């Protein structure tokens, strides 16, 4: 017990002597400065991509808070190690202090670790609703809603089905896109998704072969596209005339590196025009195919069930 007291006293003495007290004041200060910087700077090195959609911004804030705590823990522990190496090497400190432990110190540091984790968990659960719950779309947009995915409070949203397959993404626009895309003659596009700004976009994510992962960093986190399952995510693009880049994040085969995705954000008006044009183009293509099939069937090249 006496030895333990000596140990703690020597610890505190060292704190006084070596100016570690200054560090104890400086560390929170540095953390505060860091937060200010992290929020304002868009430095690509140490923060997540953000700004495209509110959920991405919430995740980035959460990340910044954890990063601040992590820097403090790292600096304290590494500082302690480096100080020990410098101060207690055999040439400077020939006789080692023979102590076996200190239960009180041990418990208090364990509790500190618990406290840090409780803080992180609390912050996570506070931030969680803004990450998982889709917000309302901006007023004045007429949209189609799906039946299955979590919806914004007023139900105003745009539903897009995202289907992954080796090695391209397909997007089908409109409600029921996971059920009746063919019968409803819904418009679709490949690789580049067109979305209106200010509208909550609900994504229904599926795969038709192997596991893929949908991910546009600036528009929120990634979601696996697992064959046999439907997964959901959402984003609400804040600014029109932006092009966001992402790519498949789950190893899906030899050309995994080229399974890219683009999200082009336009104004709701431009979107309506684009959808009309796309619907028209798809209908025309379907008509052409129908004509060719009819012709081939008449010629006897194609059986009624569609086989050559």
């Amino acid at each position, binding site marked *: 017990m006496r030895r333990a007291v000596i140990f703690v006293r*020597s610890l505190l003495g060292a704190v006084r002597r070596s100016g570690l007290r200054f560090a104890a004041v400086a560390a929170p200060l540095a953390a505060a400065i860091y937060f200010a910087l992290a929020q304002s700077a868009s430095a*690509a*090195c*140490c*923060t*997540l*991509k953000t700004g495209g959609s509110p959920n991405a911004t*919430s*995740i*980035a804030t*959460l990340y910044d808070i*954890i990063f601040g705590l*992590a820097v403090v823990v*790292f600096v304290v*522990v*590494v500082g302690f*190690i480096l100080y*020990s*190496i410098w101060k*207690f*090497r*055999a*040439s400077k*400190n*020939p*006789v*080692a202090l*023979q*102590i*076996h*432990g200190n239960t009180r*110190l*041990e418990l208090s540091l364990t509790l500190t670790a*618990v406290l840090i984790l409780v803080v*992180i*968990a609390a912050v996570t*659960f506070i*931030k969680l609703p803004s990450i*998982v719950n889709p917000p309302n779309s901006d007023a004045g947009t007429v949209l189609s809603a799906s039946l299955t995915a979590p919806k914004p409070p007023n139900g105003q949203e745009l539903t897009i089905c995202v289907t992954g397959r080796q090695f391209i993404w397909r997007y089908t626009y409109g409600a029921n896109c996971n059920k009746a895309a063919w019968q409803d003659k819904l418009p679709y596009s490949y690789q580049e998704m067109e979305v209106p700004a200010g509208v909550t976009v609900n994504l229904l994510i599926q795969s038709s*072969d*192997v*596991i893929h*992962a949908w991910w546009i*960093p600036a528009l*929120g*986190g*990634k979601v696996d596209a*697992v*064959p*046999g*399952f*439907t997964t959901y995510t959402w984003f609400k693009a804040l600014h029109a005339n932006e092009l966001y880049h992402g*790519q498949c*994040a*789950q*190893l899906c*085969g*030899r050309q*995994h*590196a080229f399974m890219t995705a683009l999200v082009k954000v336009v104004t709701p008006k431009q979107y309506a025009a684009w959808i009309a044009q796309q619907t028209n183009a798809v209908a025309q293509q379907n008509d052409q195919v129908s004509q060719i099939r009819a012709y081939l069937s008449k010629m006897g090249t194609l059986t009624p069930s569609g086989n050559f």
Partner: protein
Amino acid sequence: MSTTTQAPTHAFRPVPQILVHEVHQPRKNRQWLDWVLTTDHKKIGIMYLVLTFVFFILGGVEALLMRSQLAVPNNTLISGEHYNELLTMHGTTMIFLFVVPVMAGFGNYFVPLMIGARDMAFPRLNALSFWLLLCGGIVFYASLFWHPPEAGWWSYPPLSSIQYSPSGGQDAWIFLIHLTGISSLVGAINFYVTIVNMRAPGMSWGRLPLFIWSILIYAVLLIIALPVVAAAVTMLLTDRHFGTHWFDPTNHGSPVLWENLFWFFGHPEVYIMILPGFGMISEVLPVFARKPIFGYKAIAASTIVIAFLSTLVWAHHLFTAPMPLVVLGFFMLSSFLIGIPTGVKIFNWTATLWRGSLVMTASMYYAIGFLIVFLIGGITGIFLAVFPVDWQLNDTYFVVAHFHYVLMGGAVFAILAGTYYWYPKMTGRLCDERLGKIAFWVTFIGFNLTFFVQHALGLSGMPRRIYTYQPDMGWSTYNLISTIGSYILGIGILMSMYNFVRSYKHGKIAGPDPWKANTLEWFTTSPPPVNNFDSVPRVRSVEPMRDIRLEVEAQTGRLQKTGGSEQFARP
């Protein structure tokens, strides 16, 4: 290695005197038969270490090939197909053929020595473990001549199903898991029985060296985790060839079932790889700090707690898979919990340095390097445990950086610390300390150059396992730095390997106890004779060898010389 021991050259021998005798005549010709037929835990241990270090070099070459491909954007050095093969070979080699069995190698050599036993409990089973490992490695690497697997070391179906991976390489991977799995399982039972039954008189659980604690828990975790992966790969095998549909979504099977089964094994596997490393660090630090380990009971208990919790965190690998929110919350909190015993360990190790008298040997360099890089790996683990943050970082280079800090920075630095520490015991000769320290700095700098920038790559959106990228993504500079770092890291590792090979013939004679160490393996000669000990002392503390040394010093009135250790003595 012959069993002839070096006669101590110094004037007086450690007391109590070690009177080991030659118990058998070394073979004059066909000495390789000694190795093939051996059931001696030390020879098996050496074979384990040599074989796994060979696999380490192979895995490292695969890594360097991948880094070379990623050095510049749109590189065409390696095709997508070969890149996927390389990443599968690299991951599988490092995990199943290097880190897990290298720990078994150290365990084989040092468990009987540290607990004062004359061999493992089941010597022939021990030999079987080694030969099964070799067979697993051969089966797997033979696929190089046909068609290596390319579905990653997780082999997620449907990508690993017969439809998308028709080649036999995937089956070679399955058989590798089976063979190395049986090898590890048999070895784990052997370790468990040995440690439970064959400890020296007086060595109660509270006096068990911490490395032995970690090997015991390593064995328990292997026994828990391996049957699960064995079942999973068998199901994959029957899916591929015998018409079952466990993981086939077109026939009501579920790929998510595989993900759960695989990671129920895969996460304990992480601790299987790192816990023995923790044990080595817990041995090395007190010896070179000349100070008892701080909080022995806390370190031993935290090992058990980590093992228990490690079976409850697997789904944090599946945060992006289809799972309810409440499950994500549970696995976030359980992953946080595991950070607490790990934090306890880091705290106790740093406190062991405090007010010690640090002898900065090469082994100590690696041990302290371990503390720093493992700390970074542990901290980034907290980021990934927070599932919304994981949604951004999962499957990116941030994760690659995280687990290389834990497994390369953690396990491999510990392995190198352990190798430098125990090399004199295994060979009777000391490593070149100066070269070891230079190698440390090269390894440490190369390691951090390679992997630190990968955090930034992940944050800026680079997914892992892509074989090339476009120049306008802003990833080029970081990738080039990482590639340059990986070559520096490779040079550092090669310097250590050169050191180990060269010191075998040219190192200074070590004597029985060059480091003034604490545990029983230093009580016998270096290398130990076939029977390890003529007489096993009664153990009265966690540091039996230190007790013996102090006793001798009290009796003779002068400092105990420790054969070859003069260069480390204080002036």
